[in-house]
C-alpha cells in the first residue's frame, strides 16, 4: 500500500471562521458586562410574575375586543399596503438592476456596467436603514399619518425585494430569453415571455415571505405612534395593564400564525416549499431537486429502470399532478381574497398619498437637507461613535448566537419528519403514548416559535427590562428571542425538505437513531442552518435600532434620540456610521457564507 495520506490541516477556512465567531461571541459577552457587574434585577421578579399571571386572564370585555379587532385590521392593512408598494417597486427595480437586463439591453457596451453597479450599490443604502428609522424620519415630514407606516415599510422592503428579485432573475436559465432576443423581440417583451414566467414561482414565494415579515414590521411601527397592535401594546404595557396586553398578544399570535400558515399552505400548493433558498447553487436547490425526483419517479417507469410508486412517492406524484392542473381551488380562493383584500386595505387606512408630492413635503425635505448640512462631525466624537458601534455589534452578535443555538435545538422537534411516527428519528414502533407525546412536542415547539417571533423585539426588550438592568444585554435577549422564532421556523423547513435517501441508507444498515442524526442529519442541515444564521445576523444588525428605541443602547439609541430632537446634522453622522457598520457585517457574513459552500 502507498504512503498513507496525511491528515488535512484542521486549520482550514471554515475552522478559522469558526474560531473568529467564538472569539466574537466571547468578546461580546464581555462587553455585555456579564462578568463584571450586576445585571440581574431581582426586584423586578414580582412584576414579571404579574406579567405572566395575566396571560391566563386576558381582558375580554367587548369594548376592548372591539379595539383589538380594529388594531388587527390596521396592522394587517399597513402590512398589505406596504408589501404591495414594495413589490411594485421591487419588480421594476429588480428588473432594472438585474445583470441579465443590462446584458440583454446593452449587450456590448462595457460603460453601462459601471452605471449598473452604481444603481445596485445605491440600493444598499435604503436597505441598510431599518423601517423604524424611516418611520421616525417620515413622522417628522408627514406627521402622524398612516402614510408613515406604509412608506416606512415600502422603502427598505422595496430595496430588499429589488435585490432579491434581481438575484432570482439572474439565476434563472437564460437560453429561452436569448432565443427570443436573437429573433428580434424587444427586451421588455422578451422578459415577460421568458424570464418572468420562468421565475414566477420563486418570485411569488419570496413575496409571501416578505408579507410575513411586513406583518411583523407593521406591528413594530405601531410603537412609534403609527397605530395598530404595536401601539396598543405599548400603551397597555406603559400603563401596566397586563390583562389588556395579553389580549393584544393573543391577537398578534393569531394574526401572525394565520398569515404564516396561509403562506405555507399556498407555497406548498404552488410547489415551492421553501421560503428562502440560501447558500444553494441553482442546480441543487431543494425545489428543483424535488421536482426532478418526481419526474424521475414518472419517467423511470417508462424508460426501463425499475421503480414502483411507493406510498409516499405516489402522494408526491399526485401532488405534482395537482400542481400541473391549471386551477387549484385553494389557490383561486386565495387569489380572489388578495384581489379583494388589497383595495380594502388601501381604503381602510385611507392614507393621504398626495402628501408624497405636496409642496409642503418638498419644503420640509429641503429644510431637513439644509439643516443636516454640513454634517456635525469633529474628531472628538470619533471615540464615542466607535464605542457605540462596538456596543451595537456586540448586541447583534449575542442576539444571533442565542437565536441560532436555540433555533437549531428547536427546529428538529418542530419539523414533522423527525419524531412523529414513521419519522427519521422515531426510535420505537409507535405506541399511542409516544405518538401523543411527539405531536404534543411538535405543537409546543411550534407555538413557542410563533410567540417568539410574533411579539415585536422592543416589547420583548421592555419585558426583559423587568428583571435586567438597562444595557445591551436586554436588547440582545429581545432581539435573540424574536430572531429565534424566525430562525427556528426557517430551519424546521430545511429539516423537512431534507433529502432522505442517505438517511434511509444509514438506517438500513442498522444505525441507531442518534447516529443517523450525527452522520446524516447534522452534516446535511448544518451548512444551511449556518447560512440562515448569518443571513439573519445581517437583519439583526439592522434591528438593533429598534431595541435602541427603548433604551437598549448602541447606535440605535443615539439615532432615535437625535431624530426626535430634529438634530439632523448629527443624525447624518450617526446614520453614516450605522450604514458603514451594516456594510461591514454584510461583508463578513457574505465571506463566511461563501466559505460554507
Amino acid at each position: 500500500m502507498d504512503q498513507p495520506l496525511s491528515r488535512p490541516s484542521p486549520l482550514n477556512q471554515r475552522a478559522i471562521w469558526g474560531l473568529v465567531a467564538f472569539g466574537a461571541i466571547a468578546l461580546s459577552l464581555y462587553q455585555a458586562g456579564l462578568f463584571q457587574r450586576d445585571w440581574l434585577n431581582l426586584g423586578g421578579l414580582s412584576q414579571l410574575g404579574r406579567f405572566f399571571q395575566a396571560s391566563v386572564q386576558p381582558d375580554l370585555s367587548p369594548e376592548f375586543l372591539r379595539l383589538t379587532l380594529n388594531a388587527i385590521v390596521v396592522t394587517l392593512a399597513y402590512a398589505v399596503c406596504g408589501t404591495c408598494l414594495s413589490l411594485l417597486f421591487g419588480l421594476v427595480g429588480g428588473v432594472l438592476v438585474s445583470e441579465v437586463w443590462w446584458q440583454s439591453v446593452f449587450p456590448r457596451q462595457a460603460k453601462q456596467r459601471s452605471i449598473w453597479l452604481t444603481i445596485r450599490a445605491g440600493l444598499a443604502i435604503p436597505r441598510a436603514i431599518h423601517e423604524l428609522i424611516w418611520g421616525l424620519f417620515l413622522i417628522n415630514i408627514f406627521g402622524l399619518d398612516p402614510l408613515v407606516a406604509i412608506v416606512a415599510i415600502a422603502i427598505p422592503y422595496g430595496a430588499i425585494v429589488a435585490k432579491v428579485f434581481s438575484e432570482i432573475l439572474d439565476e434563472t436559465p437564460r437560453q429561452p430569453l436569448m432565443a427570443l432576443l436573437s429573433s428580434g423581440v424587444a427586451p421588455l417583451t422578451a422578459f415577460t415571455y421568458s424570464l418572468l414566467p420562468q421565475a414566477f414561482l420563486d418570485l411569488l414565494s419570496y413575496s409571501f415571505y416578505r408579507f410575513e415579515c411586513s406583518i411583523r414590521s407593521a406591528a413594530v411601527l405601531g410603537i412609534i405612534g403609527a397605530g395598530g397592535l404595536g401601539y396598543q401594546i405599548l400603551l397597555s404595557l406603559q400603563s401596566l395593564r397586563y390583562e389588556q396586553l395579553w389580549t393584544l398578544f393573543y391577537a398578534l399570535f393569531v394574526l401572525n400564525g394565520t398569515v404564516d400558515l396561509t403562506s405555507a399552505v399556498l407555497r406548498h400548493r404552488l410547489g415551492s416549499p421553501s421560503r428562502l433558498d440560501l447558500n444553494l447553487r441553482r442546480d441543487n436547490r431543494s425545489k428543483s431537486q424535488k421536482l426532478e425526483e418526481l419526474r424521475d419517479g414518472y419517467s423511470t417507469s417508462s424508460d426501463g429502470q425499475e421503480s414502483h410508486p411507493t406510498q409516499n412517492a405516489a402522494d408526491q406524484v399526485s401532488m405534482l399532478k395537482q400542481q400541473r392542473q391549471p386551477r387549484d381551488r385553494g389557490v383561486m380562493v386565495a387569489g380572489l381574497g388578495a384581489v379583494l383584500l388589497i383595495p380594502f386595505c388601501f381604503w381602510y387606512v385611507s392614507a393621504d398619498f398626495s402628501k408624497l408630492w405636496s409642496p409642503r413635503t418638498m419644503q420640509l425635505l429641503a429644510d431637513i437637507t439644509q439643516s443636516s448640512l454640513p454634517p456635525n462631525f469633529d474628531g472628538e466624537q470619533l471615540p464615542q461613535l466607535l464605542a457605540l458601534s462596538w456596543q451595537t455589534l456586540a448586541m447583534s452578535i449575542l442576539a444571533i448566537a442565542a437565536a441560532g443555538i436555540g433555533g437549531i435545538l428547536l427546529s428538529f422537534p418542530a419539523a414533522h419528519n423527525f419524531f412523529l411516527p414513521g419519522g427519521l428519528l422515531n426510535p420505537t414502533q409507535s405506541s399511542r403514548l409516544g405518538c401523543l407525546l411527539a405531536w404534543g412536542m411538535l405543537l409546543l415547539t411550534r407555538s413557542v416559535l410563533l410567540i417568539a417571533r410574533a411579539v415585536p423585539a422592543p416589547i420583548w426588550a421592555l419585558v426583559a427590562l423587568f428583571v435586567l438592568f438597562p444595557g445591551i444585554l436586554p436588547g440582545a435577549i429581545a432581539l435573540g428571542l424574536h430572531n429565534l422564532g424566525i430562525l427556528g421556523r426557517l430551519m424546521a423547513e430545511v429539516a423537512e425538505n431534507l433529502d432522505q435517501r442517505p438517511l434511509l441508507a444509514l438506517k438500513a444498515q442498522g444505525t441507531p437513531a442518534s447516529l443517523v442524526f450525527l452522520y446524516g442529519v447534522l452534516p446535511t442541515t448544518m451548512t444551511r442552518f449556518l447560512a440562515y444564521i448569518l443571513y439573519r445576523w445581517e437583519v439583526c444588525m439592522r434591528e438593533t435600532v429598534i431595541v435602541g428605541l427603548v433604551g437598549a443602547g448602541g447606535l440605535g439609541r443615539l439615532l432615535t434620540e437625535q431624530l426626535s430632537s430634529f438634530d439632523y446634522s448629527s443624525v447624518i453622522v450617526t446614520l453614516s456610521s450605522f450604514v458603514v457598520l451594516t456594510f461591514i457585517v454584510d461583508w463578513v457574513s457574505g465571506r463566511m457564507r461563501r466559505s460554507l459552500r
Partner: protein
Amino acid sequence: MNSDPIFELRRVTQQFGHFLALDDINLQIYPGERVALVGSSGAGKSTLLRLLNGTLLPNRGEVWALGKNLSRLSSRQLRRVQRQIGTIYQQFQLVDSLRVIHNVNAGHLGRWSFWRAALSLVYPLEVKTAAAALHRVGIPEKLYARTDQLSGGQQQRVAIARVLVQDPPVVLADEPVSSLDPALSQEVMSLLRTLVQESGKTLVTSLHSVELARNHCDRIIGLRNGRILFDAPPASVSAEMIDALYRLKE
C-alpha cells in the same frame, strides 16, 4: 455448503395502494450465492431488496433473514440483523457534505458508541481501515475529499468501501451500476464480485442488464409483474426466457 438459507421469503405479498408489487413469492437464498434479479421496471426488484434488508415489512407472508423473522423483531433486534446486511444503491445514498472518510466510516456506525462516532467526526478514527478499503476500490487518494466533489463512479466506489468497512456476510445492491457508463459498469461489477467472492459473502443484486447478470452471478431470478418467472443458473437461462421476461403484453 451451509444448508440453512440466509434469506427466506414465505408466501410474501406486497401491495402499495392498488399496485401489487410482489405476489405470493417463495424464495430461498443460500450463503455464498451471487444472485441477480432481472426484469423490467415495476417487476418488484427494488421491493424485494427492501424486504430483504428490513426497510420494508411485508403486507402478507414472512421474510426471514439470518434466521430471524423480520416482522417479529423489536427495532433494536432489527438493527442487530441489519448490521449484518450491507446495501449499495443506485445513487445519492451518501451524505454529500461529509468528507469521504466519514462516509466510509459510516460502515462502523452499527458498532460504534455515540461518543466514539462523534469524536470521529472531529478527529477521524480507524483511518487505516478506511484507507485500506478505499485502496481496494481504487481511489485511495480521495480519503479526505468532500464527497460531493467526486464523480458518479467514484461515489459508487465510496459506497462499496463503506460496505467493506461494515463487513457484513450479505451484500444487497439495488441497480448498483445503472447510473454509470457501460465500461465503468463492467469495472464496478467486477470489483463488487471480487470483493464478495474473496470473503465468501452472499450477493443479491438487481441489474438492468442481463449481460452483466450472466457474467457476474451464479443464479438469475427473472421477475415479472411481481412474480418469479424463472430462477436458474446463467447457463440454463435461454434467450426465449429473457424475451418472455421483457415482452410488453402476452
